[in-house]
């Protein structure tokens, strides 16, 4: 009994610790005070309005939208290819390939950003949203591949063979059986890749040049003075992340339940 109470108190403390920073951002985005502190200065939407009126922020939003969507689409496609390749084939160099797909998120973003900047600064992609996309894909494909590979583990040989047996070429089997089967994990991979791209600021800052994403805008605002607009953008960013990660989790769980119609 006592143990359970202590355990729950401990977990509650952990939850509070993890929730506090997110709640602070959201709650104070509606606080009329310029500096986010107590006492509560009254409810206002002024900072949200001001943020949406800020040309830099609005353009950062567009950039983030483009970069996140682009990253999500490409990382999901490439992640599926990598996952299927790992699931279906054996070939020379497979381990190395899987390693260079899996490792990027483990490299500190400062180093990754510096390396990518050094390489991309010699190409026309430098300073464009495309440049940020290609770098974000290299990071996000790791997560996409992991989610889709997990789902493929449930596919089994029979469904694909049944498709071939019923006249589907290998390509059609992939298109009409493997991809539909993986759909939940594709959605999950798409959302998670978008979330990863949305939150990443170091590589985007290095490679994106003047084309700031929202996270880079937040970062640049932070380097200046305390600005209540940060809370307003932050609320938007957090809400978007929350939605994306939640969809990803729900889809992945649908995928996780074993096929019920074997």
């Amino acid at each position: 009994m006592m143990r359970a109470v202590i355990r729950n108190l401990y977990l509650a403390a952990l939850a509070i610790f993890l929730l506090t920073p997110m709640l602070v951002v959201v709650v104070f985005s509606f606080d009329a005070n310029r500096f986010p502190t107590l006492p509560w200065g009254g409810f206002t939407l002024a900072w949200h309005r001001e943020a949406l009126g800020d040309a830099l922020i609005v353009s950062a939003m567009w950039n983030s939208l483009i970069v996140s969507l682009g990253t999500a689409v490409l990382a999901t496609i490439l992640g599926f290819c990598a996952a299927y390749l790992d699931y279906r084939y054996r070939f020379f160099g497979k381990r190395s390939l899987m390693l260079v797909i899996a490792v990027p998120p483990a490299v500190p973003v400062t180093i990754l950003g510096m390396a990518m900047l050094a390489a991309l600064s010699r190409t026309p992609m430098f300073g464009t949203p495309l440049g940020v996309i290609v770098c974000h894909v290299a990071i996000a494909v790791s997560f996409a591949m992991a989610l889709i590979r997990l789902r493929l583990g449930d596919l089994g040989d029979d469904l694909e063979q049944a498709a071939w047996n019923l006249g589907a070429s290998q390509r059609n089997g992939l298109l009409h059986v493997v991809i539909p089967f993986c759909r939940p994990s594709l959605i999950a991979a798409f959302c998670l890749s978008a979330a990863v791209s949305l939150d990443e600021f170091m590589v985007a800052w290095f490679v994106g040049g003047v084309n700031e994403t929202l996270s880079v805008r937040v970062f640049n605002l932070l380097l200046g003075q305390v600005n209540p607009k940060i809370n307003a953008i932050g609320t938007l960013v957090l809400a978007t992340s929350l939605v994306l990660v939640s969809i990803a989790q729900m889809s992945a769980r649908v995928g996780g339940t074993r096929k019920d119609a074997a």
Partner: protein
Amino acid sequence: MIDPYVRLEALDMRYPGHHAVKDLSLDIAGGEFIALMGPSGCGKSTTLRMIAGLEQPTSGRILIGGQDMTHVSADRRGTPMVWQNLALFPFLSVEDNVAFSLKMRGDSPASRRRAANEWLEKVGLGGMGKRHISQLSGGQRQRVAIARALVTQPSILLLDEPLSALDAHLRVHLQTELARLHRELKITFIYVTHSQSEAFALADRVVVMADGVIQQAGPPRAVYRAPVNGFVASFMGMNTRMDGSVAARSDGMIWVDCPEGRIAVPDTVAAGPGAALSFVIGADRMRLLGGHERAPEGHPTVAGRVVGIEFVGSTQTIFVASDTGRDFRLQRLDLGDDAVLTPGTPVTLTWDPRHAWVLPHP
């Protein structure tokens, strides 16, 4: 068999460390219902999968309708299969599952839907096209799998233990259904099973396999009554096998010296006196002698004790251990006198010597 529709020529399948199918040749007539049977790992499923093009034989040829199909890929063979675990597509509706091969063929959506629903009607699932696979019972799913395989009106249907996942009642029901479909469609059915009762109930011809080799092929009755060797005899199950040495030959009979005495068997093999010889007696050919009944002249008798009784519907199988320590099986209609046949009851077995079968290859 004048015109073999499917011809397997010297098929060989080697995996690293495992020789699954060895030099297998078999002709299957158009419209024949053939059952490949044998214990698991005997190569029957591998053979079926080679016919379907899901496995590439190490050597040998597969001809279908006179065409060499050995190197034609699975999707171009026109050999649809019903899978043991059904392999229905869980993300498609019943209708779309059935229409899958039509879609792959490039049929229009309207004609696909029409054909799919026609076939659902034929297997007794009319009006269920829009349902999700998970909403169907096991038997219904089985019917979807059959409809899905038949929708392109193939000339061959491959079935890989299709009923083994169903309960006994459903199995019998679907067995009848399959027999009806075969009668109506008049196409070749190649049916893999480990169940003797399924194979016998359905097939025109059964092929018994062991260790990647065909042991015997023939009509169920012939294989059952006249197994070519000890493996087939024991795989058929309801036999008692006896061994002895040839004592004499007379009147179309061979007299064999067994521990149970000198027993006559039909003279069907060339075996000189003293040669070892094995023969089997079908369980349904055995008879129990009544209290004071005497066996007819020349009919062997074996004394023993009842070990146990098993009921299958209206028939019963009585297990008897002879005084010589051999296990005998006797199958008969349930006479209702089993009360006196409790384990330990002494009994005497007899049979007509003409019903014994000498194994050509023990």
